[in-house]
């Protein structure tokens, strides 16, 4: 097998806002009624105003062909918000979830995490949650709010979000 001489990653930098976000980016699923919002925090607990959050998820039936994609900048106050549908469970036995990528100034290589839903019975059998240390699992579960769900991302420090080596 040939050597995989990958092109190395570099930070998205502070000035991507005029280039990568697009108006429909935060709309993961057209007409969806599920609102998912959150804030990205750094290790000092400060909001990160120059992160870019991307999500990929299955449709309501758990289908991933042509995965539903969204992109939202956290400018100017560290917050992001997506409009989507609740994904169905995927074929690999996972509970409903969104895959998340975080890019930011100061992040030389992006991070992968996941959003799961509170009170979801399938979480108990989810093979990914099962390998996450129990005392950190809550960082992957969104919090239900009046108008949807909240999922904060902590890059470092207390209650640091679980990130995956994908």
């Amino acid at each position: 097998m040939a050597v995989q001489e990958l092109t190395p990653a570099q930070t998205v930098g502070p000035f991507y806002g005029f280039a990568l976000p697009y108006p429909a980016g935060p709309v993961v699923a057209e007409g969806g009624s599920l609102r998912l919002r959150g804030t990205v925090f750094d290790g000092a607990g400060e909001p990160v105003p120059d992160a870019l959050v991307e999500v990929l998820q299955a449709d309501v039936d758990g289908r991933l062909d042509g995965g539903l994609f969204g992109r939202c900048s956290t400018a100017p106050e560290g917050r992001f918000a997506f409009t989507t549908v609740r994904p169905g469970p995927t074929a690999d036995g996972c509970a409903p979830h969104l895959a998340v990528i975080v890019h930011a100034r100061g992040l030389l290589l992006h991070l992968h995490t996941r959003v799961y839903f509170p009170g979801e019975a399938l979480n108990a059998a989810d093979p990914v949650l099962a390998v996450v240390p129990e005392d950190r699992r809550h960082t992957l579960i969104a919090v239900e709010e009046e108008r949807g769900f909240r999922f904060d991302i902590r890059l470092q420090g207390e209650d640091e979000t679980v990130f995956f080596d994908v």
Partner: protein
Amino acid sequence: MATPLRRDGRDAHPDRDHPAYRSTALRHPRQPLVPLHDPETELARPFLGAGPIAPLDHDLTAQRGGQPLGERIVVTGRVRDGNGAPLAGQLVEVWQANASGRYAQAEDRHDAPLDPNFAGVGRCLTDAAGTYRFVTVKPGPYPWRNHDKAWRPSHIHFSLFGTAFASRLITQMYFPGDPLFPYDPVMQSVTDEAARERMVAAFDLDATVDQWATGYRWDIVLRGPAATVFEDVEG
């Protein structure tokens, strides 16, 4: 089941904890990453509904009323996976500073002129051979506040997806022979010299257009599919 991706070669990427680049200090996780083997979702291909590519999206010198100032260049190359297979139909997004080293973004306070004829944003799709091509001007170097006399070498930002969320890549393309390389902690965060050189384009006479633009070639390699038993059986 989606095709698993190769896991080798990823040590070419920088460590997220790189003290010389100060902004990494509070933005890298301290807890170990949790390994996720062959996850169905992250191996899926995102459907990118960003709309059709407009005819001038690849030509950053023709998106405004007039010609931008600066050294007109062609930047082209092939996007391949880690097994050498061309990646056709790939969305390639680029953004950059203008020839004076200023981004067309309000937060950029560098005291260098904006160019009304240059937005600094482009995108295109790779062709059947995995080739992309942009026309632009060479970006200028610019100062930042990381350390005393900190200047970023000229670079163009690139964003690609590959075949899956797990092959996502955001990186920067540099220009050959830039004297700022040794002083740039972002570039030097890639510690393997051969890997670092893979971020540097080459001057290319074939891509150069007589009486019009110099050409640079820069190839990109994204994670490739892992071999499977089934492929072996089918030869």
